[in-house]
């Protein structure tokens, strides 16, 4: 049942190649619009979208929407982590707890969060509570599985060594199980952070909770097409920034793990 996710690093040498890739895509999109391969009315050139983005930047509206989306993201992710880490530690350490929870987890996990939107609206209305619930539900699973995996991945040899040197159960938990698990939780947080952003924007788009998602719908309804694309770009940039940040945290916390190791002497 355990999903393992080890991150790939972002090698610096590929930075310039990446930049070239981005430029090629932007130029292609610009040309597609300029030559009207897609209807220019619904698909403005990149430069026009960029102009709309520049116009948006000084407005308080944009930043308020970014703030609301990030608030839903942060509260949901925090709630998910606050529940998933202790539960993961428990069911990873205690075999009967693992077996007791397994059936429930296997049933709940495949439910797409968006399928819960109607129920969430009934329970929490259309505001922040609903958004946080959906985000938390979706973000909960990767963190839970990483926590369980982190507990179970502590080698029996390490645990036995700790025991042979007289560390009691509490000391073994605090000095062996917990450090290993928290490093794995960093990976879970990175995965869940991306999912959380998707769910926050979805809740805003579909239900109309305040935030970037609703701003995108508003721009579309008002036929402010370049503005709509500019807002979509903002969600993308936001996702990229969050993912980069979590990658950095993860690389720090998990640098010792075989999947992250840089150099080996012998």
């Amino acid at each position, binding site marked *: 049942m355990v999903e393992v996710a080890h991150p790939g690093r972002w090698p610096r040498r590929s930075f310039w190649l990446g930049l070239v890739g981005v430029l090629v895509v932007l130029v292609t999109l610009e040309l597609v619009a300029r030559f009207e391969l897609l209807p220019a009315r619904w698909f403005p050139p990149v430069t026009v979208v960029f102009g709309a983005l520049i116009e948006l930047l000084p407005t308080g509206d944009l930043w308020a929407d970014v703030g609301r989306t990030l608030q839903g993201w942060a509260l949901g992710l925090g709630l998910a982590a606050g529940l998933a880490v202790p539960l993961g530690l428990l069911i990873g350490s205690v075999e009967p707890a693992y077996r007791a929870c397994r059936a429930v987890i296997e049933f709940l996990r495949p439910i797409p969060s968006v399928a819960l939107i109607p129920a969430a609206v009934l329970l929490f209305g259309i505001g922040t509570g609903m958004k946080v619930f959906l985000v938390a539900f979706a973000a909960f699973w990767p963190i839970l599985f990483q926590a369980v995996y982190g507990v179970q991945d502590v080698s029996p*040899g390490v645990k036995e060594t700790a025991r042979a*040197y007289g*560390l009691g159960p509490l000391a073994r938990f605090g000095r062996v199980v917990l*450090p290993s698990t928290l490093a794995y939780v960093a990976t879970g947080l990175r995965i869940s952070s991306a999912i959380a952003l998707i769910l926050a924007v979805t809740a805003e788009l579909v239900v109309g909770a305040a935030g970037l998602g609703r701003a995108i719908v508003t721009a579309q309804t008002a036929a402010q097409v370049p503005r709509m694309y500019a807002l979509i770009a903002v969600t993308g940039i936001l996702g990229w920034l969050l993912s980069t940040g979590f990658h950095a945290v993860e690389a720090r916390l998990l640098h010792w793990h075989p999947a992250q190791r840089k150099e*080996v002497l*012998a």
Partner: protein
Amino acid sequence: MSSSPPAVLEVASLAKSYPVRGGRTEAVAGVSFDVAPGEFVCLVGPSGCGKTTLLRCLAGLLAPSAGEVRLAGAPVRRPPPQMGFVSQDYSNSMLPWLKVDKNVTFPLRHKGIGARRRAELAAEALRVVGLSEFARHYPWQLSGGMQQRVAIARALAYQPEILLMDEPFASVDAQTRGELEDLLLDVWATYGVTTVFVTHDIDESVYLADRVIVLSRRPSTVARQVTVGLPRPRDQISTKELPEFTRLRTEVMRTIAQVGGGGPASSEHRAPPGSSRVAASP
């Protein structure tokens, strides 16, 4: 053993059985021996004879089904604070997120030793095993032999009165193994720490020990005790070419062949690749 000095470790009628489907299986059946202070004792025996089970009982990691282990007169019911432990699985005994020096000091904190003293003990132990310059490396950056030296340093820094070693050199190459054996003998001679060393390698047991305890096939009992009077300091070449070395080695080997003969364990005889050593079991 009436003529021996008072024992630091006493093993009395120790037995260990495990529940299995339809009953219990006996791994150790009534093992008794004493270890004198400062003595180097090797436990050898045929494959699957319960050597590791026995050592885990001595370490307080396993509760015996019957009998008793006493360390300095007190019964061992859980890992005692004056006992150091080195296992075969060196890479899995290291905490991969801690650097070498922190791995060495890892067991010291809960012993109530202050940070400065811990650092001193680690520096000293790493110097003894020749790894001072690798203190700030991660264990996984080191070779297998070096990692096992870290494990020895960790045991030394713990300042144990008795050191238990479970086939510690079984998974390193023959050359490294010889170096580690000599390092261990140096450390033992310097610190005078009582050592109980489990191995399946007959040459190794005779080369290292004051006394070799040969265990029978499972369920293990003490088949024979062989006192090794070879002069110290010992040397990989000159000690091993002594006629007495050959005689003792043959004696241990014969005992193992007798106790393991005819059974499935004896059909598994196989020397490690690239090694001319005689193995009691693979």
